[in-house]
């Protein structure tokens, strides 16, 4: 092997999976025809949110021609020792509205749906409690937060520092329940080949599912084969095992057939998780020159009766700004809701919305430019861990963003600009997202005269991983991209981490590089050669604080008659390590920013206090941004290579785009109108409060 001859990394390569996708040739989970004789599953969901099933009459459903089986908690296969939220059809207990209480398997999906309507379920129901309030007397601290973060962090005497601060703000921000809405609904095709469970599934990494599914069905990892080459978006909702995957395995077992399960859009609101609502109290203290003296961020959020999901909402506050006295806390209310899950930048997205809004309010209280206030409080080292940054270029992002956006001429006074009936304002907010890597393995098969087969159970959920990993492999092998035959998305490939936490490139890329290095000094014999490589977190995680950063700028217009909000332009600059592919990277940033805009203006799943269900559980009523909502978007990045963290010098880019974007829009809204709306989304009704 020779050294790299041509650099694919860093060049604008179009998606290698694009042509197959636009031609309809890239099979998504539900499209796997398998043996052409698949049968179909439909779900009976609980109409109550809390209580017990007192009876289920399935006789009418079973009598429908074409119905093969109706499973209930009375006769469904028993599952192994899996998390409580996954114990589907295992007891008469109902813990959330929409919980599956019976499963129909039929020859056609139409028959299955027809039969669902004929199952009669009676309940002993209780009124659910779905009300998240900061003054509940049953809030409790979870043992740990998701990601292993400490629940609370306290440095110094925060209350004394706040009391002594010449300038301070004390504000409470709220974010609502939000739901992931990838284009592809969750789908699983399952079949038992003897004692081997074969699945074609939409997920964020087949290996993510293996521990739960093997435990649920009492099989070994060798007895489970999951294939997931193409996934139509996920955002976190496909990271973990959900009940539909277990239902698919159960239904296939009972009927002995290949079973297809596809959730409806409506079902996704109760069965694949959501982002918890949050209530966040921010108290910031500062000297008149803007130097922060105290930062307090107290979070109240919810989890479910059947799971403890503790979103790490205030963890970004632990590192953003220097201040001698600091505190973050997280408290949970256990409510009668479905289990929450991760949604693009869990923790950072809601947490940085609140922090960056409060920082803007502090700037206003200080009479100081909000960019300048951030620059003034830039910490030299991680302020809580007391370790150096591997790289931190927030200052460059803020300066370049201000330049590109035209921030310099900004009139800081709120509510004084108009263009016709539009009130006009601008806002800024910072972004951050952790840089991490997870254990991953890769294999390369070299045969003279043939492309290198590079195998890793990585996952492309629409991010561009197919392309970026091929670029990385080509450079590592010193060959053109055409000489790389990448294989991903299969549990029989070398084990790799899932697509989540913006860790894909930093985890999978180094594993591929490690495998390629095994080939470098070796002659490939005529019969071929197979090498493996692995990568995982090293000392860097302890030695350094590693994060991507960014700065968002937004212009907002609010119609003074209707309260309608428009965002004609957004500028963002990111410092996110080496960019593998500018084209797909820009798409990731753009997608994150659009999702942040959607969070700012539109997204809210409303829990019905009486019935405990998400009342607006479809895309007609749960609004996500449309093309018409997105204006001019200016995206760039600073030159940054973080080789202290990983050999690629890359950072994750999937989530840093959403973080802070809602705050920039909220701050611009306040600048436009002179009024702070401290609970998302910024729907027109809130203008009339």
């Amino acid at each position, binding site marked *: 092997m020779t050294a790299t001859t041509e650099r694919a990394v860093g060049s604008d390569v179009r998606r290698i999976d694009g042509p197959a996708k636009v031609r309809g040739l890239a099979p998504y989970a539900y499209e796997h025809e398998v043996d052409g004789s698949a049968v179909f599953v439909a779900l009976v*969901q609980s*109409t109550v949110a809390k209580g017990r099933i007192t009876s289920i009459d399935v006789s009418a459903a079973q009598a429908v021609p074409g119905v093969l089986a109706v499973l209930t908690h009375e006769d469904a296969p028993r599952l192994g020792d899996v998390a409580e939220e996954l114990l589907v059809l295992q007891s008469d207990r109902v813990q959330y509205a929409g919980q599956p209480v019976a499963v129909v398997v039929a020859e056609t999906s*139409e028959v299955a*749906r*027809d039969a669902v*309507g004929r199952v009669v379920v009676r309940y002993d129901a209780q009124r659910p409690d779905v009300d998240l309030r900061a003054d509940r007397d049953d809030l409790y601290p979870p043992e740990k937060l998701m990601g292993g973060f400490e629940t609370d962090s306290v440095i110094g005497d925060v209350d004394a520092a706040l009391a002594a601060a010449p300038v301070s703000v004390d504000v409470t921000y709220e974010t609502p329940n939000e739901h992931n809405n990838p284009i592809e609904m969750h789908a699983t095709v399952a079949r038992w080949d003897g004692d081997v469970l074969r699945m074609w599934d939409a997920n964020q990494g087949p290996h993510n599912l293996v521990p739960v599914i093997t435990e649920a069905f009492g099989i070994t990892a060798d007895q489970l084969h999951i294939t997931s080459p193409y996934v139509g978006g996920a955002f976190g909702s496909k990271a973990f095992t959900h009940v539909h995957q277990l239902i698919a395995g159960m239904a296939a077992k009972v009927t002995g057939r290949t079973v297809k399960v596809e959730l409806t859009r*409506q079902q996704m609101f109760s069965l694949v998780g959501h982002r918890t609502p949050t209530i966040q109290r921010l108290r910031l203290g500062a000297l008149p020159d803007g130097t922060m003296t105290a930062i307090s961020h107290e979070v109240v959020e919810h989890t479910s009766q059947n799971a403890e999901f503790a979103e790490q909402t205030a963890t970004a506050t632990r590192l953003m700004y220097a201040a001698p006295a600091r505190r973050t806390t997280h408290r949970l209310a256990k409510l009668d809701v479905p289990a929450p899950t991760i949604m693009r930048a869990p923790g950072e997205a809601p947490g940085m919305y609140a922090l960056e809004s409060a920082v803007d309010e502090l700037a206003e209280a200080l009479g100081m430019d909000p960019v300048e206030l951030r620059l003034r409080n830039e910490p030299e080292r991680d302020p809580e861990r007391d370790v150096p940054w591997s790289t931190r270029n927030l200052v460059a992002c803020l300066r370049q963003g201000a330049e590109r956006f035209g921030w310099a001429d900004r009139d800081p006074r709120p509510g004084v600009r108009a263009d016709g*009936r539009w009130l006009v304002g601008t806002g800024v907010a910072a972004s951050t997202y952790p840089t991490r890597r997870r254990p991953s393995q890769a294999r390369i098969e070299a045969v003279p005269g043939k492309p290198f087969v590079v195998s890793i159970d990585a996952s492309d959920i629409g991010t561009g991983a197919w392309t970026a990993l091929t670029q990385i492999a080509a450079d590592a092998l010193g060959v053109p991209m055409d000489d790389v035959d990448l294989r991903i998305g299969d549990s029989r490939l070398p084990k790799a981490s899932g697509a989540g936490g913006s860790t894909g490139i930093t985890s999978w890329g180094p594993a591929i590089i490690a495998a390629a290095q095994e080939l470098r000094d070796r002659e490939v014999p005529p019969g071929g050669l197979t090498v493996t490589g692995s990568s995982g977190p090293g000392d860097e995680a302890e030695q350094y604080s590693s994060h991507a950063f960014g700065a968002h700028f937004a212009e907002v217009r609010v119609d003074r*008659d*209707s*309260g*309608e909000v*428009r965002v004609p332009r957004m500028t963002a600059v990111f410092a996110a390590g080496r960019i593998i592919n500018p084209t797909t990277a820009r798409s990731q940033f753009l997608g994150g920013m659009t999702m942040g805009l959607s969070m700012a*203006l*539109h997204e809210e799943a*409303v829990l*019905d*206090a*009486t*019935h405990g*269900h998400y*009342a*607006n*559980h*479809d895309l*007609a*009523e749960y*609004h996500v*941004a*449309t*093309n*018409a*909502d997105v204006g001019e978007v200016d995206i760039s990045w600073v030159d940054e290579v973080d080789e202290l963290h990983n050999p690629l010098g890359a950072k994750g880019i999937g989530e840093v785009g959403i973080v802070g974007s809602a705050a920039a829009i909220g701050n611009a809204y306040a600048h436009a109108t002179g009024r702070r709306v401290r609970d998302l989304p910024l*729907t*027109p*009704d*809130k*203008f*009339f*409060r």
Partner: protein
Amino acid sequence: MREFRYEKAIDPAGAVALLTGEPEGAYLGGGTNLVDLMRLGVATPDVLVDVRQLTSTEVEDLPDGGLRIGAAVPNADLAAEPRVRERYPLLAQALLAGASGQLRNRATTGGNLLQRTRCTYFTDTTMPCNKRDAGSGCGAVEGLHRNLAVLGATHEGPTSPHTCIATHPSDMVVALRALDASVRVLGADGERTVPIAELHRLPGDDPARDTTLAHGELITAIDVPALPWATRSRYRKVRDRASYAFALVSVAAALDLDGSTVRDVRIALGGVAHKPWRATVAEDALRGGPATEAAFAAAAEAELAAAAPLADNAFKVPMATNMITRTLVQLAEARA
């Protein structure tokens, strides 16, 4: 979802005869609303009678200068029709404010009139809803009602069989209400003409019924009478996002000025009631008076005085007041 038969008739009378004999059947037009409701189990017809090719797809001139719109004219075609754009700008604007390009290609004019409410308690068969399941109560009054009615609703509490705060979702119908359109209807006993004011109804004590049509009656055409001064007209829709959302509040208005005096005016509201809401109180207050922002605002406030909002939709009252005022100001400022 229930199994159903699919039928075609050779002419409108045949379709009427077919459906009149099928008490649980339904007409199929563009299907953009009905098919969704069937998938959700909200609509459960046992037979669909396809009428898409039975009624006219033409827009014809009426002797008085008005237009007759065939019931099967697609929304997209109607919005693009030059005579509509010229004579009734508010109607073209209303059509383009509705749904998406794909849906407008598919949706018919007749079907647009008969859309069902998008109230989430109506579209969820596990929830109480007097409109879908008579007597089951109303989940919305104590639940999600941010985008429901503030005018003409029936609110006797969540368990009353009469309570209904649904809104009519159509944009087009708001413009047609302002234009005093009439609907030509074919029934088992022949043809009749229904003024659009009498087509849709308030929930009263029978929220299950959206319209005054009898089962089996088929809309064949919509007549829009001449209104020369409708060239100075406008449809303004306020919604939660820039496109593809139902109205929080919409205003269809036309203004006829005599110098700075209001000679005549038409105002209809969408998103606020069980039917398109003709703002007759405001019209009466304005006719013969000054065309000033103060007068427009006073008239709008008078119209909304009858509003009885709930906790989460009270914003619609000032929003509708503002939008009536602003729309009339813009029309007064526009050159005819």
